[in-house]
């Protein structure tokens, strides 16, 4: 079976004033149709840049410097801009974090969605509106006709995010990249949308890359988890396994700082220090300054990728349980 999305050795750089910054550093993963991959990391870890790289939406001064990106077997890198544009929205779509910002405030929801329909398929305006209405119904929006006539500011945040998801679904793309789509929403709405996404992935066979900083969200949703740190994937494996027995000290730290399962009244453990600046990463392992298990080896040599069913980028991984 061909993977819906197969990323190999993806590297994205930005030419900034501080020098050449490698925001995404040689990462690889793949997602099967109907599966959900959780891409987890703190802000600045390169997870959003990964999403934009896949869609070919990295603007100067950034560029995708190396790697392969295959969507349903088609290599995206090296496609002419026009061909790449035709892939976007039809084969691979994206949903953004803040639903307040992703819809144009001065256009009706229906007009915006119809535009997205007609850019990939020749059809009348009326037919495009009908398609948009069906898409809204698919994501569980009541009275879709009225919603189409509304302007974005007349909808709630959760409703807008559903509109964005429906827009991403218009052409039944094989892959949807969801960049923290529930972060800006209330917890109750968040739960509804997560359930909706799970159902859609199962029913339509769309592969989903779910980008988030919240391990709790991914643990209930994703089939597989990639943990990113400073532009690299430091741990990758099946969701249950990663959650149950993290191998990388960073994943461990992330899990420990999730409030659930802790004795009340006890201070939460934290990962000491803060995310490193990509422009001047420490030599050796980038996590070394914050790592409880660091040794002199970590100071000098960057860890290589080890693999025993789980990929862990660490000299001293935690033992498998």
């Amino acid at each position, binding site marked *: 079976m061909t993977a819906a999305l197969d990323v190999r050795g993806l590297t994205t750089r930005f030419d*900034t004033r501080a020098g050449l910054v490698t925001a995404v550093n040689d990462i690889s993963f793949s997602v099967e149709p109907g599966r959900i991959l959780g891409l987890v990391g703190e802000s600045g870890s390169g997870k959003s840049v990964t999403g934009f790289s896949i869609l070919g939406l990295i603007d100067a*001064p950034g560029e995708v410097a190396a790697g392969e990106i295959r969507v349903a077997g088609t290599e995206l890198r090296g496609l002419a801009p026009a061909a790449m544009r035709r892939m976007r929205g039809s084969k691979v779509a994206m949903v953004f974090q803040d639903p307040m910002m992703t819809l144009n405030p001065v256009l009706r929801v229906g007009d915006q969605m119809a535009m997205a329909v007609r850019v990939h398929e020749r059809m009348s305006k009326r037919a495009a509106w009908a398609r948009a209405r069906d898409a809204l119904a698919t994501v569980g929006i009541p009275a879709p006709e009225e919603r189409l006539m509304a302007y974005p500011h007349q909808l709630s945040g959760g409703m807008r995010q559903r509109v964005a998801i429906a827009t991403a679904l218009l052409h039944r793309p094989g892959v949807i990249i969801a960049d923290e789509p529930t972060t800006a929403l209330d917890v109750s709405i968040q739960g509804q949308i997560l359930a909706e996404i799970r159902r859609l992935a199962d029913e339509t066979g769309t592969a989903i890359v779910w980008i988030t900083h919240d391990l709790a969200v991914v643990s209930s949703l994703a089939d597989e988890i990639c943990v990113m740190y400073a532009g690299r994937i430091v741990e990758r494996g099946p969701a249950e396994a990663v959650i149950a027995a993290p191998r990388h000290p960073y994943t461990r730290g992330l899990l420990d*700082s999730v409030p659930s399962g802790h004795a009340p009244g006890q201070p939460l453990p*934290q*990962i000491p220090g803060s995310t490193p600046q990509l422009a001047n990463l420490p030599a050796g392992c980038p996590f070394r300054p914050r790592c409880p298990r660091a040794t002199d080896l970590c100071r000098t040599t960057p860890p290589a990728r080890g693999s025993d069913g789980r990929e862990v980028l660490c000299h001293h991984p935690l033992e498998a349980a």
Partner: protein
Amino acid sequence: MSDTTLSEGGPVPVPSAPPAETRATRLRHFWDDYRRAPMAVAALGLVVLMLLLSFGAPLVAPQDPYDMAALDYADAFLRPGETGSGGYVHLLGTDNAGRDMLSAILYGLKTSFVIGLSAGALALALGISVGLTAAYFGSRVEALLMRVVDLQLSMPAILLALVLVAVLGQGVAQIVLALVVAQYAYFARTTHGAATAERRKDYIEAARSTPLPTHRVLLRHLLPNVMPPLIVVATVQVASAIALEATLSFLGVGLPLTEPSLGSLISNGFKYIHTDRTWLSIYPGVALMVTVVAINLVGDQVRTVLDPRNSR
């Protein structure tokens, strides 16, 4: 992630305003960013040169154009490069009264700078006071003050200045006053805008909740944060004050020719544009244009450097 200061208990310190760098390093960073545009560096050099030349005019200029006794009608309309009765070369020629154009331009430039800078500074002070007062007190005071400011902003400055000069009469002080009234509103609007945005931030709230006196909150916390946009507006407004003064003088309501500003010199030259005595208007015009454009280019680059969205 979570903030360690909160869990430690004890008194919560008042969060201070963002600037953490020292003034010197900030200035160096500013300069590093600024000089990335060679045009803007050249413009800054020009402005400095013009300032030096004009304020050093008594030392540099061959003649004092205010000294009517030194003028000789026999020297009238000398072409650029001709030698007059004074025995020196008039590089830019002489005017209808035998005035050396180079000297007149340098002195005129000084008048223009004096008017532009003092009008700019006074308008800045007035604008800051109005803007901060409105932003700090809020409610009725704010509504009233900003209404007046908005009204003034919708009126073109030239019209306002024109009427004011007509009311106040001719003279440097009158023109400066007219320009201040015509321009303070830009500063007030900018200050108010920046201060309102700043007011919503937590550190102002925190500072207000401590027993610091009002004026200290305003001056120590709000003012530094509204300064960057004000610097930009100030540069542009100095240039526009110089241009406005020249326009008023050109229209005949500004300064008399016995007290030459660039505008009155050009206005005088305008009478001769149908003859071949074009040096009477071209040279002061070029001086005015170069000055105003150079200041604007400087302001443009300052704006670019100070715009946080342009830092990467």
